[in-house]
């Protein structure tokens, strides 16, 4: 069980283990999240990172941003690579060490789906952090299975017609001990979840909503506001699943209509004809309502 004091868990960590000077866009949710994750995990950590935005903006030879060990090989295999690192530490009787596999939504839920499922099922002591920016941003904003209904990407130019894959619940159904969702606006909550996860032995999954100003079509200064609206509308429920039970659901203080969230982002602009919402907006509201009901937000 989780034994750290709540004071330790709720303390915001600032260690600059993911250094400034990397090449992310201004307002990048993933860069912010990666720093929060590294600082929460601390020095005794190995970052295993999948190919994608994070890897590209943080690890050009010879100028990586990481002050903790960093391992990258390919796009779809980071869960298996992290499994191998963990197996090596076990076999060599080294450690303990925090092993954190990290990837974007495509590397996690699409091309890396088999690999992450294997890692969960085998029970490796690895925390997987998914930075969810809801499309393939590194290659120029193409649709992934995390792209929400209605969102425009370069490969869904008329708007995405399918709903987002629910990986946190799929992860939980592997029977792993800890699953959580978080957003980058709430430092304390995000870092508490990283620290909580790292106290638990076995596979853990942390799903972080990480807005992408470039792909979502908003200015960089709106990253935090958009995260807050994602929660206030019910579109991104924030919760934990501890040993299979949903816990610590973040309650919505003041419920907002999805329109407030959609109107801030260029990727949804086509859903408003001369300012009037088209029928897809009602379906997005329905998705939010279902989340609110399902998780009792």
């Amino acid at each position, binding site marked *: 069980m989780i034994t750290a004091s709540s004071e330790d868990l709720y303390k915001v960590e600032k260690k600059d283990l993911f250094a400034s000077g990397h090449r992310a866009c201004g307002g990048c949710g993933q860069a912010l999240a990666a720093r929060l994750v590294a600082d929460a995990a601390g020095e005794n950590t190995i970052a295993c990172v999948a190919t994608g935005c994070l890897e*590209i903006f943080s690890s050009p030879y010879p100028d990586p941003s990481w002050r903790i060990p960093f391992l990258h090989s390919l796009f779809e295999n980071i869960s298996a690579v992290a*499994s191998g690192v*963990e197996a*090596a530490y076990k076999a060599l009787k080294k450690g303990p060490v925090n092993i954190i596999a990290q990837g974007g939504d495509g590397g996690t839920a699409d091309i890396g789906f*088999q*690999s992450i499922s294997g890692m969960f099922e085998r029970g490796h002591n690895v925390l997987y952090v998914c930075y969810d920016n809801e499309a393939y941003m590194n290659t120029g904003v193409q649709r992934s299975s995390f792209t929400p209904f209605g969102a425009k990407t370069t490969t869904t130019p008329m708007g995405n017609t399918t709903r987002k894959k629910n990986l946190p619940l799929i992860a939980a159904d592997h029977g792993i001990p800890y699953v959580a969702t978080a957003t980058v606006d709430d430092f304390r909550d995000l870092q508490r979840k990283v620290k909580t996860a790292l106290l638990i032995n076995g596979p853990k999954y942390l799903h972080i909503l990480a807005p992408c100003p470039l792909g979502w079509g908003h200015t960089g200064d709106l990253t935090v506001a958009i995260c807050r609206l994602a929660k206030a509308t019910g579109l991104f429920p924030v919760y934990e699943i501890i040993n299979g039970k949903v816990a610590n659901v973040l309650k919505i203080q003041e419920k907002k209509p999805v329109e407030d969230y959609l109107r801030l982002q260029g990727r949804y602009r086509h859903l408003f004809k001369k300012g009037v919402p088209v029928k897809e907006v009602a379906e997005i509201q329905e998705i939010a309502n279902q989340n609110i009901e399902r998780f009792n937000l």
Partner: protein
Amino acid sequence: MLKYLEGSHAVSQVVAMCRPNVISAYPITPQTHIVEDLARLVGEGKLDAEFINVESEFSAASVVLGASAAGARAYTTTTSQGLLLMNEVIYCIAGMRLPIVLTCANRAISAPLNIWNDQQDSMTVRDAGWIQLHAEDNQEAADLHMQAFKIAEQMHLPVMVCMDGFILTHAFEPVDIPEQKEVDAFLPPFKPQNIVDPRWPRGIGLYADPRFYMEVRYILHRALEKSEKVIKQVSEDFAKKFGRQSGGLLKTYKIEDADIVIITMGSVAGTIKDLIDQLETEGKKVGLLQICSYRPFPRKEVYRVLKDKMNLLVIEKSISLGRGGILGSDVRWSFPRTEKKDRKISCFVSGLGGRNISINDLRTAVEMVEHEPVELEFLGLNPDIIAARDL
């Protein structure tokens, strides 16, 4: 100690004595007996290693990649479709200079689906930056694994030990299995250098832009070339310790005064040697050059032994579709341009998908090239099937 056992078990027992820390594999015929035996040895506590059962060959290769990057001596084995599925990781392992050892139980490639032996699978990754060593028999397959770890760790290069599927993996024959202390004396513990460890934070697998990428690939190529010396040296050290010749760059048989030299890799060398002995009684001088190290390809050594040989016959179990023999191309490339003109190099694609290569087939090939060289021939084709199906 001489033991009568299956080729797969000769390999698994020697691999276990090499004390790998992490083993990860996905089952595929005809590699399965190797993994099953290693899983048993780990399960029974006879081998202190982590055995990771994965959901695909892609993940098996990725697990050993991660394990090796974290400082473990890591081993995997596969074949055919499994090796093709690993392909992306195979290239990455070499680029990252991880000294992983992989056994390839050589098997044909789909389609059509076929589980029997040829060497098309390892051929598909010949350019990936791995050392590829081909075993002739089960003794050599077992011995090559000891040498493979030593070469890999010395050169920071991955090594693929290729053994013909079924023909070797499932064949029972006497194999001299060493004592643990002999293996320990030959293969020192792995001392990794660049590893992920919080005590020395470093980045492994950074991306390289056009200013750096080409140099990395050049250095990798040079390392492959330099490994020729190490492959030879390790084979010589092995011969001193164990009293038998295994591995090395190449082997020859009755080549000195041969008029025709057959060139091949793998288990078919045995049949060829029998044929050479038969032909000798008939007064025909035929020799054999066996390539053990296919990558790096020992061009200079090949040239040295074939310099005066004008009639060469390549028996190979793979094909570059739309081009022809692959090993044949490597052999042809071994001669300086000025010496290519008068030399006859005949290429016979043989034994694809487990088609038996009989001594009579080989005799036919020799008789053909005695009269006239052939550009490309397929040994033992059934004309009836072709007539019925060829469009």
